[in-house]
């Protein structure tokens, strides 16, 4: 019974889809404007956009703010005034070495956001094509890519990180790339799974029958259907990059001192939970707000890009 109705729907879908499939899948000015309109209507997403933009703005301009507004330096120690609580002029207090907490939080934001983005970029750049190709072509290609993914998923990450940290003294960018390289496999598997499913849908077969090349199929028919999964994944990757770095700092393998990142500031402040709670609150709050904004935005984008959404 269910199969019959599906077959019927598919047949009608094939007839109806062959024509409008193309304009719907190809991004046109109308499509993007439509997306933006949909996004605008979602209040939660707009809140997230503003929040995220604000965070990006203040962290990107950190050096300017530090020099011209606050007149501080993130690494300037003032041991005699360490653990100073927040006060006018020292808006977020000082840390255990007397460094200004606000300045460090701003500078740390640059590092953490960079890591988050880079992780997502690497993960998507490598993971999406890998998953696409594996899911689309199947057979030996799928086997080969699967094998590579599974081998890489199982190398002892900690050792990898130890070796790298000793040999290369990774700066934040390099660390971000490394974290992305370690983590793209999950993205690939998710994309592969989606592709396996989408790639078998009848309108794809129909398009193929009509003579569409592999590339066209991939980019115009399959990829757009992946946007929902990919945008969720992207959100997760950025957020997990930031959070993962914090865990690495615990093991001493994250961003190296004295460079600050939200992750290592958070980690560092654990010793002072009761003594200097502002040291814990500042990076914790920033991570919270950033990750919150990213997840909400990813949701919203997913909804906005959805070509099938109706109000």
């Amino acid at each position: 019974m269910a199969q019959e109705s599906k077959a019927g729907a598919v047949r009608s879908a094939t007839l109806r889809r062959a024509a409008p499939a193309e304009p719907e899948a190809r991004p046109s000015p109308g499509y993007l404007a439509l997306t933006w309109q949909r996004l605008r209507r979602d209040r939660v997403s707009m809140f997230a956009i503003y929040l995220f933009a604000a965070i990006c703005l203040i962290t990107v301009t950190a050096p300017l703010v530090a020099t011209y507004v606050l007149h501080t330096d993130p690494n300037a120690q003032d041991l005699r005034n360490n653990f100073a609580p927040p006060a006018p002029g020292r808006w977020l207090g000082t840390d255990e070495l007397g460094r200004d907490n606000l300045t460090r939080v701003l500078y740390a934001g640059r590092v953490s956001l960079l890591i988050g983005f880079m992780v997502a970029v690497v993960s998507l750049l490598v993971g999406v094509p890998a998953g696409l190709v594996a899911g689309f072509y199947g057979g030996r290609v799928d086997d080969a890519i699967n094998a590579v993914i599974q081998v890489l998923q199982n190398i002892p990450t900690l050792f990898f990180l130890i070796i790298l940290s000793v040999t290369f003294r990774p700066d934040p960018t390099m660390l971000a790339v490394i974290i992305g390289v370690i983590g793209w496999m999950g993205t690939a598997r998710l994309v592969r799974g989606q592709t396996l499913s989408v790639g078998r849908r009848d309108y794809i077969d129909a398009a193929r029958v009509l003579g569409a090349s592999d590339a066209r199929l991939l980019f115009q028919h399959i990829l757009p259907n992946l946007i929902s999964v990919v945008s969720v994944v992207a959100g997760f990757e950025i957020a997990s990059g930031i959070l993962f770095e914090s865990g690495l700092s615990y093991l001493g393998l994250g961003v190296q001192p004295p460079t600050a990142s939200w992750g290592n500031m958070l980690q560092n402040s654990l010793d002072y939970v009761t003594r200097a709670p502002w040291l814990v609150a500042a990076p914790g709050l920033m991570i919270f707000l950033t990750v919150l904004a990213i997840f909400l935005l990813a949701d919203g984008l997913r909804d906005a890009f959805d070509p099938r959404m109706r109000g």
Partner: protein
Amino acid sequence: MHLPSVSRAAVCLVVALLLAGCSPPSPDAGPSRVDPRDAPAGEGQPGGTMTVATTGDAVSFHPYKVTDTASRGYQGLVYAGGLVAHDPHNPEQFIPWLAESWSVSDDRLTYTFHLRPDLRWSDGVPITSADFKWTFEQALKPENQYPYASNFAPIAAYEAPDPGTVVVTLKEPLAVGLDNADVIGPLPKHVWENLDWNDAAKNPEIMAPTVVSGPFKLKEWQRDSHATFVANDLYFKGRPKLDSYVVQIVGTQSIAFQKLRTGEVDRADFDPADYEQATRLDNATVYEWWPAAATWNYLGFNLRKPVLQDVRVRRALAYGIDRQLIIDKIQYGLARPIYSAYPSSCWCYNPDVPHYDYDPERGRQLLAEAGWAPGPDGILVKDGERLRLRMIYGPNTSKVRERIATVAQEEFRQLGVEVDIQGLEWAAFLQAVHMPPFDWDMTVLGWTSTLDPHWMYQVWSEENIPKLNAGAYVNKRVEQLFDQGVHAFTPEERKPAYQEIQKILADDLPYIFLTMSKSYTGISNRIGGIEVTPLGIGHNIEQWYVK
């Protein structure tokens, strides 16, 4: 001139691993001065349980296989120790322990120990010299791989002429002779001789000893969770007042501290950052002491590097460090400055050595004298070479070392020296420091000093490069003085040698000596009988009681 090798009895030279200042919650060896069965003005009833929180679980109970602090702590609870012990109130003196008396031959080569007549293993079998001799022979065998096998090198013979006597003959007369002679603690021969010494699968005593000599017996051990010990009625100093002693493993020191606060445990060591809060707790007291076996921090120089071979540069850098700031701000006041190789708790301490105290102006002057002139960006330059140093520390999770390095980096920058700091993972750090290519200029490290000053000779002798003498310091005069010191026999005779050693090292600066740490621990007010000594509080654990 051959120098004697190390002895286990002397608290070993351990590179202080993590946060300085804390002594592990384990009882250190130490007897009372009077008959052990006299309790000091006995208050409180016997019975009750004391719970201790610690962050590291032990590895095994085998005293001759594992050397980590947590394991030694557990071993100290169940095995009574050796023939003599250091007097907790006067650590350079020895007091009777399993031996009730001893005598030394005139040529100082033969030590004769008379065991207490009433020693018993926990199963009732008497502890005799046969146990000592058997354990000695087992530990000596190369296939048993005792990590401190070198302790046996000074011993010429180890005999048990009758069940109550142990006679140890040394190869040469030395000031540390008694330490050398009291080289092992006995294991029960009647149990162990039928078991495999090495294989824990074949020898259950290694992981769960049933026949013991110490104040407590092991009741249960759940790895990484907890270990429960119960009182041993046959302990030679009398059955402990506590019925049981539980060691609880917690994940982090801050959780341990929280547990002390809430009363869930009776004892916890905590991070110095919590010290202030700890002193204000209603339900617990912070016991603190300046330990005789002090842990001290230093910045070590790699003397293979030409730039650091100029003593003026080293002295200038020493002038750049503000010790008081480190003490106040990084160690929260729980430390004192030191200027040479021995802490103030040593009988050989020499207060009269050159002090390179904080004086950055003088430091800059010295560097100028050494030919360094400020370059365009403020960093010193000489013959086209920038004064740039690489400072490494480990483990990279050690916050104290990280902070010292960060502060030092900033202070040296004031002198015009550019310092690049890097925290390395512990294993990688050891490799970097002790193995070629010795690609570092300075390290942040620490030592725990020994009770007898002699054992530090290893750190300053040429033969120990690159292991204990990681910085490759060579000074024959210092080696000579160490040799002198160990071949004299009374503190008065030995003192001059060590005093001069301190003077030389304070001036020559193979290290910038920084601070020595205070020991402290938090104990619930529910527990009584705690007595603070330079050897810690563990010496009278059998006297602790629940109020």
